[in-house]
């Protein structure tokens, strides 16, 4: 498949905010691409730039104090450096986003049905009755019981899981080709989380969408994505197929992230491998690798020179590290 056939091609994208304490490079030199009907996971801790990256791809930066360079080609349309009016042509139909907090992404004093058919009436010029019928169809599609009744409900009358379903229905209203889900299940209970993640998977297949799933939880991306990107301090530190990143990880940060989270399958009182220190201040980044101050295998070079993303032996698997972890033999299942 050639580059132009891809749904999303991001090249050398950087987003820098101007803050009172200095320039803050929230996203630095990121390149990625996404095919039709593919799910890409973006993983990182808070402050690693994953949400800013998603918002920059959407073209949702603030109007002032921000500088975006590089290129985002979405379905062949450039999203960087174009006016909001132009970007509005692609929102909803080419790309749509599901935000983290389902309470604040819905208008609390507007019935949920109207919030869904607003997109249909404004973007698709649908007559009112048709929009209403389509909105009820969408509510049914996302698994909301008695959709006619829920159409007239206010967000406050719905539970967190139901509200997130409404947000997904709103995002799907104009049949986007790419759905960006930013921490769609954070703050929801585990049983509801499983329902929402299954729903996104199911809708992706049914509607032939591509999905970008952003999360801090490695468990969320492990079985639901084909490729993942690990971010740290605004940069991609490792990327590859999900199996490669989990089983043949080369970047010490990826391993540290995986080993620091407790597992349901390990016995009680297992000592956790905590990562010492905390993520760096982006305004004042060290000259070398951003993870070096917390890394157990850091050497002098790591502190002085920044490693670039380097392709591993397996195609598509790349990492940015001077002292990568040794390649483990393929795990025998």
């Amino acid at each position, binding site marked *: 498949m050639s580059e132009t056939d891809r749904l999303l091609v991001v090249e050398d994208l950087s987003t820098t905010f101007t803050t009172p304490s200095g320039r803050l490079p929230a996203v630095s030199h990121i390149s990625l691409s996404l095919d039709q009907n593919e799910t890409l996971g973006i993983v990182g801790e808070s402050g690693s730039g994953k949400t800013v990256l998603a918002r920059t791809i959407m073209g949702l930066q603030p109007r002032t104090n921000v500088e975006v360079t590089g290129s985002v080609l979405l379905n062949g349309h450039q999203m960087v450096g174009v006016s909001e009016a132009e970007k509005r042509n692609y929102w909803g139909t080419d790309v749509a986003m599901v935000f983290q907090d389902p309470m604040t992404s819905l208008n609390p004093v507007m019935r949920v049905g109207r919030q869904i058919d607003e997109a249909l009436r404004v973007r698709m010029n649908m007559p009112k009755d048709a929009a209403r019928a389509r909105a009820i169809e969408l509510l049914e599609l996302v698994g909301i019981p008695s959709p006619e009744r829920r159409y007239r409900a206010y967000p406050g009358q719905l539970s*967190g899981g139901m509200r997130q379903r409404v947000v997904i229905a709103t995002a799907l209203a104009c049949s986007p080709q790419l759905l960006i889900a930013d921490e769609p299940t954070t703050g929801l209970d*585990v049983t509801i989380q499983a329902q929402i993640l299954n729903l996104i998977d199911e809708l992706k297949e049914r509607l032939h969408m591509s999905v970008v799933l952003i999360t801090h939880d*490695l*468990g969320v991306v492990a*079985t639901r994505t084909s490729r993942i990107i690990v971010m740290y301090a605004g940069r991609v530190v490792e990327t590859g197929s999900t199996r490669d990143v989990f089983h043949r990880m080369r970047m010490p940060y990826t391993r540290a*992230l995986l080993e620091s989270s*407790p597992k*349901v399958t*390990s016995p009680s009182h297992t000592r956790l491998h905590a990562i010492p220190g*905390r993520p760096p201040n982006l305004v004042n980044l060290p000259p070398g690798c951003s993870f070096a101050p917390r890394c157990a295998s850091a050497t002098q070079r790591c502190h002085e020179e920044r490693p670039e993303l380097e392709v591993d032996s397996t195609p598509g698997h790349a990492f940015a590290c001077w002292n990568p972890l040794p390649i483990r033999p393929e795990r025998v299942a």
Partner: protein
Amino acid sequence: MTIERTPLLKVRDLTVTFGKGHHAVSAVAGVSFDIYEGETLGLVGESGCGKSTTGKALMKIVEPTSGTIDLEGVEVTKLRGRDLRNARTRMQMIFQDPISSLNPRRRVKDIVAEPLDCWKSVAGDERAAIVSKLLNEVGIDPFVYGNRFARQFSGGQCQRISIARSLAMRPKMLICDEMVSALDVSVQAQILNLLSDLKDEYGLTLLFIAHDLAVVKNVSDRVAVMYLGKICEVGPSDVLYDAPAHPYTKFLLGAALEADPDAPTHGEVLQGEPPSPINPPSGCRFRTRCPLAQERCASEEPVLSDIAPGHQVACHFPLISRRD
């Protein structure tokens, strides 16, 4: 086994009801459990199941409606005034949001010394020495950071300061309410390791309330699972996670995500959402979502009873067979 030991905390038929009449919500609807000295009891459940309210009722931050709470032979529910304050020195609580549980405009060393000042137990050099020791123990250098304000710290550091403050009166028991859920995984691991070190050092008994099953298993000796204001299963954590007896526990564990692409694909997902605690279902509270529910579940409420030594379940049709 822990069974031989005397419990440090005995809770019997604890209920907490908010509101009156038709609007009454029974957040905690008859909960009984023991916590033995030196152990960690994990309390898991989905939001709204009453786990935080249970923790707060133990501290009498919310007033229990009925039931008894026995801490080392002292009946806490009846205590008032000075006696209650006295009892609270032996039981301390750590809250979910580390940043809002510290006064942003106070200095770290004063925050940690606050319990000591309240009791006027120590002063001067001795007070300073205790504060320095506590801060050192939670990994915050008292000479560098002691004079800084709480607002200058990150979430993980604020949680360390909260822990130091809660240990100032040398309590027997700590109630940790979702203490790591607001933290990033790398910081969460630091705090969990710290908690486990301090537990050994101070001989603490913990009630660890959280929604994250993996975190609860990591810290707990025994785990209690709550659903809609009631405990549906209690057991040693390894046993409960390996062979859950209550269908709800099984679904909860099935929904936990494993960070492994080769993990078995997800089993059956629990449908629907918990019913409202204003009008809970008759009989077993889980029956409306339970695939195994039968008529008996609607008419008769299952009581928590032994299914194996130290393992209790409240279900008419448990998933594992009873043995004595």
